[in-house]
């Protein structure tokens, strides 16, 4: 019997797997976990992005850090494993605002900005978002199962969700 391989995806990192592999990222806060899936070949990919846009940052060599460059790179890696771009669907989680402040501060809204950027990029690529668990003020650990495309979202004090 083949054992389910669990592959960890760190902060500003991405990885891909094929069934029955499981991709996980631990403790997502304002970052966003982007999960792409080709249901036919069961190729799954996960990216853990920190910032919305590589073009606004000078120090942008780490492609997995930014929503725009990470998604492009993730798709390339999935195609190498046999996925087809037109079949890809996505599930996203994270983008929390961990600390609340009364007055307006752009940095504090970074979670929300990350989510907006990810949605826009996926929409431009015609990749449908079939499920999401974003926002709020709490952290999330996510597990993405390549066997069936299920995304498990675990929290401390806010329950477990299956997307």
């Amino acid at each position, binding site marked *: 019997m083949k054992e389910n391989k669990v592959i960890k995806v760190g902060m500003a990192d991405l990885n891909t797997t094929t069934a029955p592999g499981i991709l996980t990222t631990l403790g997502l*806060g304002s970052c966003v976990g982007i999960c792409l899936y080709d249901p036919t070949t069961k190729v799954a990919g996960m990216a853990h992005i*920190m910032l919305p846009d590589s073009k606004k940052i000078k120090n942008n060599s780490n492609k997995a850090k930014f929503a725009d460059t990470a998604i492009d790179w993730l798709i390339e890696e999935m195609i190498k494993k046999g996925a087809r771009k037109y079949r890809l669907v996505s599930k996203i989680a994270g983008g929390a605002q961990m600390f609340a402040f009364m007055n307006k501060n752009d940095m504090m809204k970074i979670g929300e900005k990350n989510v907006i950027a990810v949605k826009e990029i996926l929409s431009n690529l015609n990749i449908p978002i079939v499920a999401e668990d974003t926002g709020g003020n709490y952290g999330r650990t996510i597990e993405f199962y390549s066997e069936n495309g299920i995304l498990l979202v675990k929290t401390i004090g806010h329950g477990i969700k299956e997307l």
Partner: protein
Amino acid sequence: MGGYFDNNIVIDILKEIGNIGAGNAATALAKMLNKRIDMNVPKVNVLDISDVPALIGGPETLVTGVYFKIEGDLDGSIMFVLDINSSQTLVKLLTSGYQNNKDNEIDDFTKSVLQEIGNILSGSYISSLSSLTGLNIKISIPSIAIDMAGAILSVPAIQFGQISDKILIIETEFIEGSDNVKGFFFLVPDYDSYDILLKSLGVSDYEGK
């Protein structure tokens, strides 16, 4: 512009600020508790962002984060992070033995005590930075979160992420009798404020070196 942390002079200066700031924070804590507080020499580290959660027990470890914005001549933020055991120990010390009854949940009283401790420690840290640089620096009211280390640390990591793939951490350990409290400070000046901070400390030409 390369990484600020590629430059040794910059790192040394930030380390020294860390030492002085943590020392003042320990003094403040001793006054607050009216007890003798010993402190280990703070460890100042520049780490890859992805390695930071491991330092505090892994991305899913429950930690307390108290977060402030820095305002005035510098913009940015400061965060004080404690693991959950250290959080409980500090609350116990400060309240002469108050115990949070629920095992997995932090009650409001404990939260407000932690928020206030974070306030005093970060305030004394910032005031030493202020007197060292001659800059007028203030901190905002605190905001507290108790959650997974990875999630809490994503906040300073993202802010550092705009200027570097590395993050500067000041690890301090306070000791009262048999109780140890380990805390971490993250000082994150905004992009433009780095120049102001370094210039005020006499480092004006660091770029590209």
